[in-house]
């Protein structure tokens, strides 16, 4: 006697679509700028801050902001720049701040993972600012600007 099985819906096994690449570049912490390890430690500490850490009702640092901060640190050409100051940002973000002679750069990781920058330059008391969205981390122009090599 032969048994037959009828599926309620046709059984059509699908092969998983091949992803463009299974591999991503791994950057070892020991290969990064010496200060990057310290930054990773600091943002990990900030990511553990509770709600209302600023006493003004801020959300805790979001997972999206924390992940993007790590991506920022791993993908940016930070060997070009000195150690930044790092801090949590009210609302659930994280911030990096560099200051060189007359030039000031703030990178703000927003709670949703978007990254914004604010460049401020002061020449003889005249302050000029430029802000924008940072969409790629490999672009070196921001860092050359900070080093004074770009206007």
């Amino acid at each position: 006697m032969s048994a037959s099985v009828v599926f309620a819906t046709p059984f059509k096994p699908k092969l998983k679509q091949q992803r463009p690449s299974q591999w991503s570049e791994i950057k070892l912490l020991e290969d990064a700028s010496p200060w990057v390890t310290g930054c990773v430690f600091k943002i990990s500490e900030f990511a553990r801050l509770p709600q209302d850490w600023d006493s003004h009702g801020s959300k805790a640092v979001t997972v999206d902001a924390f992940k993007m901060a790590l991506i920022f640190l791993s993908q940016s050409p930070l060997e070009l720049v000195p150690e930044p100051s790092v801090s949590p940002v009210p609302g659930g973000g994280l911030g990096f701040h560099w200051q060189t002679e007359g030039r000031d750069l703030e990178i703000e990781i927003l709670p949703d993972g978007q990254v914004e920058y604010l460049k401020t330059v002061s020449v003889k008391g005249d302050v000029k600012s430029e802000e924008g969205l940072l969409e790629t981390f490999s672009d070196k122009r921001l860092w050359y600007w900070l080093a004074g090599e770009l206007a």
Partner: protein
Amino acid sequence: MPEHIDAVDISDDDILWRRVDQSMIERNPDGTESLQSWAYKDQNHELSVHLARETTPQLVFAAGKPGQVLVGLRAQIIRSLGYKVVRDPEPDNSAHCLIIPYPTNKPHRKAMAAASVRVKI
């Protein structure tokens, strides 16, 4: 919606204090200190400050968190950027004020931060 009135009894020379996390202040090689612009950012878009001459650091810190510091800013800086200093007294804190409207403009927040100094206690 009530109209927010710039407090006439708060002069341009009055100092306003704000509690900020100490990680938002960094020491520069020349010994000066810099405050990051997000010190003037707020989750609820209500920027709280305290009129220095009507309070004490202890009272301002009473509602704060460990590791916070006080920074001071002249009212004139806030007004010169187009904002009002509006009284917003709380039951136990008549010195409480708000900067209105909430500064969404990053360069404005940076200008406030650049003009702020840490209050030595």
